[in-house]
């Protein structure tokens, strides 16, 4: 099995590593902070991050340094950093591990990002269910504050960064950056119309950067070892660094595997995750969380980097790889994800709010063997009228499971409908909303 250097998971893999401040410092923790604050000019930190090629690990993959560069240079009021820890994309469970096992690595990244964008306040928006994670972060912030890494006049450099944990309350959409901001302002988490972008009008209408946990955790390493080092890992020039891939589904050893970007799904599943649990062949997989279209065994040699996965018709997204074995019903799988999206639609845009309900009802009808052949057209039609017609990317995400399963496994839909026709259930009873 090919082995790769661990970057983000390295500390926590050491026997006895607790994630305490003392443990983190022993591994060289907070050296990047010491090296940077007051010694490197903030724009140079941004330049380094831009040069490293680091792209957002939350889903969209936007270049982090470029995002920071959008903040107005001539604005002297407050600016904010929001750490997006609202990990809710089905199939994704990496941020939870990064926060609960090595919180200081995330905190050091947060302070570095704040320094680069001249923000004095950072909020960690953590999903409400992760109570343990929020407690661990609170404790780590306390330790860092006592040691002078967080707070006023950090390490005597005159730099001020305060960090607070803010718990969400169970809404998937709050992982979308403008919905996160609305939620942090104490409102319903409805995405905002963009532009204006958070870079100019974010939290409290002030310049704001929202970065994912894993993105921020990379920063100390980029500062310590240099942009060139980072830019050489993975699939340069566009997908640099590692990803913490979250493997779930029918594999022998599901879990988090940190690998350079550009490894193939085949390698991830068969070499790292131990292969398939009952040695059945793979029927389908999702390469980047529930919002990413399903792919087929023909795509097993697709490289897991942003460009290659996009070229294969899906997206690398959050790095959540869900694998399904031969025998799994793809209509059922698509319905399960559709039910998720139906439940989580925030209700702001009509195509998504109404469309998700219609999609779920039509899918339930097909599964219940009460479908009609024209339902397939209805499904595609609905999907086409949702995608791209909503304020945020949720609309595109929610149609991915159905569109991609219709594309690759249309026959399964057809067989279910043929069964319905054979049973002569021409007048389907309405299937309840639920």
């Amino acid at each position, binding site marked *: 099995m090919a082995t790769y250097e661990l970057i983000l998971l390295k500390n926590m893999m050491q026997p006895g590593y607790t994630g305490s401040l003392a443990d983190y410092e022993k591994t060289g923790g907070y050296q990047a902070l010491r090296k940077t604050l007051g010694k490197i000019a903030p724009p140079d930190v941004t330049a380094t991050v831009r040069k490293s090629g680091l792209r957002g690990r939350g889903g969209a993959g936007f270049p982090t340094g470029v995002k920071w560069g959008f903040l107005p240079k001539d604005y002297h009021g407050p600016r904010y950093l929001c750490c997006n820890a609202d990990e809710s994309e089905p199939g994704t469970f990496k941020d939870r591990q990064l926060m609960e096992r090595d919180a200081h690595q995330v905190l050091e990244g947060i302070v570095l990002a704040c320094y680069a964008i001249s923000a004095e306040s950072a909020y960690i928006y953590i999903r409400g269910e992760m109570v343990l994670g929020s407690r661990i972060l609170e404790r780590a912030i306390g330790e860092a504050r006592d040691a002078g890494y967080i707070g006023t006049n950090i390490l005597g450099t005159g730099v001020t960064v305060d960090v607070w944990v803010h718990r969400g309350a169970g809404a998937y959409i709050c992982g979308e950056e403008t919905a996160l901001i609305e939620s942090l302002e104490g409102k319903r988490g409805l995405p905002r119309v963009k532009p204006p972008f958070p870079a100019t009008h974010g939290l409290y209408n002030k310049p704001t950067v929202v970065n994912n946990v894993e993105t921020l955790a990379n920063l100390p390493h980029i500062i310590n070892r240099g942009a060139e080092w980072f830019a050489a890992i993975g699939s340069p020039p566009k997908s640099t660094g590692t990803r913490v891939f979250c493997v*779930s589904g029918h594999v022998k050893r599901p879990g988090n595997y940190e690998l350079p970007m550009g490894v193939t799904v085949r390698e991830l599943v068969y070499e790292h995750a131990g292969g398939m649990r009952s040695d059945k062949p793979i029927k389908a997989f999702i390469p980047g969380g529930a919002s990413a279209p399903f792919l087929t065994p023909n795509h097993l040699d697709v490289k897991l980097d942003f460009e290659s996965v996009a070229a294969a018709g899906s997206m690398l997204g959050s790095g959540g790889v869900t694998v399904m074995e031969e025998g799994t019903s793809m209509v059922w799988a698509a319905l399960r994800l559709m039910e*998720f999206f139906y439940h989580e639609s925030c209700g702001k845009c009509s195509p998504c709010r109404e469309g998700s309900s219609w999609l779920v009802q039509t899918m339930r009808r097909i599964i219940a063997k009460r479908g009609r052949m024209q339902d397939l057209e209805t499904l595609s039609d609905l999907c086409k009228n949702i995608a791209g017609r909503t304020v945020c990317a949720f609309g595109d995400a929610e149609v991915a499971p159905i569109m991609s399963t219709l594309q690759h496994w249309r026959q399964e839909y057809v067989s279910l409908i043929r069964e319905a026709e054979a049973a002569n259930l021409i007048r389907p009873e309405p299937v309840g909303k639920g």
Partner: protein
Amino acid sequence: MLQDKYKDEISDILSRYPVKRSALLPLLYIAQRDQGYVSEESMKEIARLLHLTPPQVYETITFYTMFNLKPVGTFHIQVCKSLMCALVGSDTVIEWIKTKLGIGPGGTTADGLFTLSTVECLAACGTGPMMQINDDYYERLTEEKVDRILAELRATGTSQLKSGPFMWPEPARKS
């Protein structure tokens, strides 16, 4: 009154935000911790504290699934039913709990101990099937494990099987 009971905690929370309304979710959590749900009384008090109208509090609270608007059992069981858990058997776990407790999703046992809900993804897809009970996660569930968790909760109010800081696979299992 929350303000009398949690004075220091509330003022600490308020000090974190330049705009009062940001403290809304944190204060709702205090109310829920105190009573097990958020009563209308608490919503009105929180509205007063944050200079909001009660409808502003209500419109916000109803957006979020984690706030209970009516009392729930001592132990609120929330089982994940999203695809990733379903692939590894969450439907069986849900059926098992339903049979064990004699209630369906949304129901509470007659003794007021357990409320059962089915929920969407809780970010523990590699260790499914999983559930959350109050503040704790329980992962890699089997029928035996569920039995033990329920028995321990009944007997002691807590269970040894709850998850600690998350890491999976554990280092020893990685070759």
